[in-house]
């Protein structure tokens, strides 16, 4: 569903007509004032339990996002020729790139913030289609702007990542936390921002987890010059750069290595017939070959 916000910056989640007629259950949790968090609205879209597969697909399985599709098409043009041949690249140590949009979202809106904008989002990513033969090379949280940046931005943000699920391997620390502080410099006209979370997600994906529940918390310093553009309000996608070790996948690094070692095999020596035929077409005599 699309999201809109009023002029004051609070979020609303309008329901589509289908959802309104068969609205899935929602959870409204009010935090106690004693916790010091004030009033928080937690909206969590739960999956309907009945067997309305199409509705479930529409709500729980997001349709291919046009922005995500545009990003991946751009990536395809960067990595492959017009004929679909992978471009040779020495740094190309991965043969698979997956863009996963959040399976579900839980937004935490905080009001009465004196400094900066605090925005926390719980994201659930479904990794069912990441196979055990696909080894993680790099993972990125991808934020896309709905419109190009109209003015160059230079802001400082702190991004906190927290895994909400219990990690069986660690009884003492059930949650894995990771904090990233970075200076964000968004150039004019940019449409995407990538945040590297490889070290954070590496153990999870290596263990074969099929879903990842991440809480993303952004705090950005704001001044008078910074426009109201807030990246934290955007829902990120998860970009996984993987090395598929299966036989059907192309291993470019092995191909390049083999080519360097045995160049003679790949320099296809034209046969006499082919060369002579070419000369015939050009009206030339067949070449004489020295003994």
């Amino acid at each position, binding site marked *: 569903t699309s999201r809109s916000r009023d002029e004051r910056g609070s979020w609303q989640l309008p329901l589509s007509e289908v959802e309104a007629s068969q609205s899935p259950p929602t959870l409204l949790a009010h935090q106690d004032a004693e916790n010091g968090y004030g009033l928080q609205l937690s909206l969590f879209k739960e999956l309907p339990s009945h067997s309305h597969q199409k509705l479930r697909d529409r709500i729980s*399985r*997001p*349709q*291919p996002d046009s922005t*995500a*599709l545009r990003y*991946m*098409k751009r*990536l*395809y043009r960067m*990595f*492959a020729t017009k*004929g*679909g*041949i*992978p471009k040779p690249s020495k740094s190309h140590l991965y*043969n*698979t*790139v*997956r*863009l*996963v*949009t959040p*399976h579900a979202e839980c937004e935490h809106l905080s009001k009465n913030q004196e400094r900066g904008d605090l925005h926390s989002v719980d994201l659930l990513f*479904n990794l*069912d*289609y990441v196979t055990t033969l696909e080894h993680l090379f790099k993972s990125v949280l991808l934020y896309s702007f709905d419109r190009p940046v109209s003015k160059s931005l230079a802001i400082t943000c702190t991004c906190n990542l927290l895994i909400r699920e219990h990690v069986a391997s660690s009884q003492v620390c059930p949650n894995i936390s990771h904090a990233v502080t970075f200076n964000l410099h968004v150039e004019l006209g940019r449409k995407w921002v990538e945040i590297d979370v490889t070290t954070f997600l590496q153990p999870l994906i290596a263990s074969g987890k099929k879903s990842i529940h991440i809480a993303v918390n952004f705090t950005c310093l704001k001044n008078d010059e910074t426009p109201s553009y807030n990246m934290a309000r955007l829902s990120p996608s998860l970009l996984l750069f993987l090395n*598929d070790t299966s*036989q*059907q*996948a*192309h*291993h*470019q690094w092995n191909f390049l290595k083999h080519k360097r070692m045995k160049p003679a095999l790949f320099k*296809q020596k034209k*046969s006499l*017939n082919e060369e*002579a*035929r070419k000369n*015939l077409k050009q009206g030339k005599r*067949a070449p004489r070959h020295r003994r």
Partner: protein
Amino acid sequence: EAGGKVENTPSPIYDLSQYYRQYLFPQNECELHNFWLRFSQLKWNRWIIAPRKYNPRYCKGECPRVVRHRYGSPVHTVVQNIIYEKLDSSVPRPSCIPAEYRPLSVLKMEPDRSIVYKEYDNMIATKCTCR
């Protein structure tokens, strides 16, 4: 013949290129052929986003008697050819098949609507052999 009728003589060849084509470069020889395949023809465009079409190529043609030098065929192919010609014609002649391939990059959509870019090996034939 005495009556001036000419029989059983081959047609005279006055063109050198024709000579080469007929005797040195046989027709329908084993070689690569193009075939542009649109994924929409196979209804695969439902999950394959890019490319919309690609040319896998295929090998077709007759394998000549001399296969080692030109097609890089193994010695076994030569032996099998000789068996076919000299001893037993039920033993099949070598076939014209791909020998080398190139990969193909594909952009496709998973059932959960995630998008994946993947490089698949051995998708386009680049060289033929007789085997």
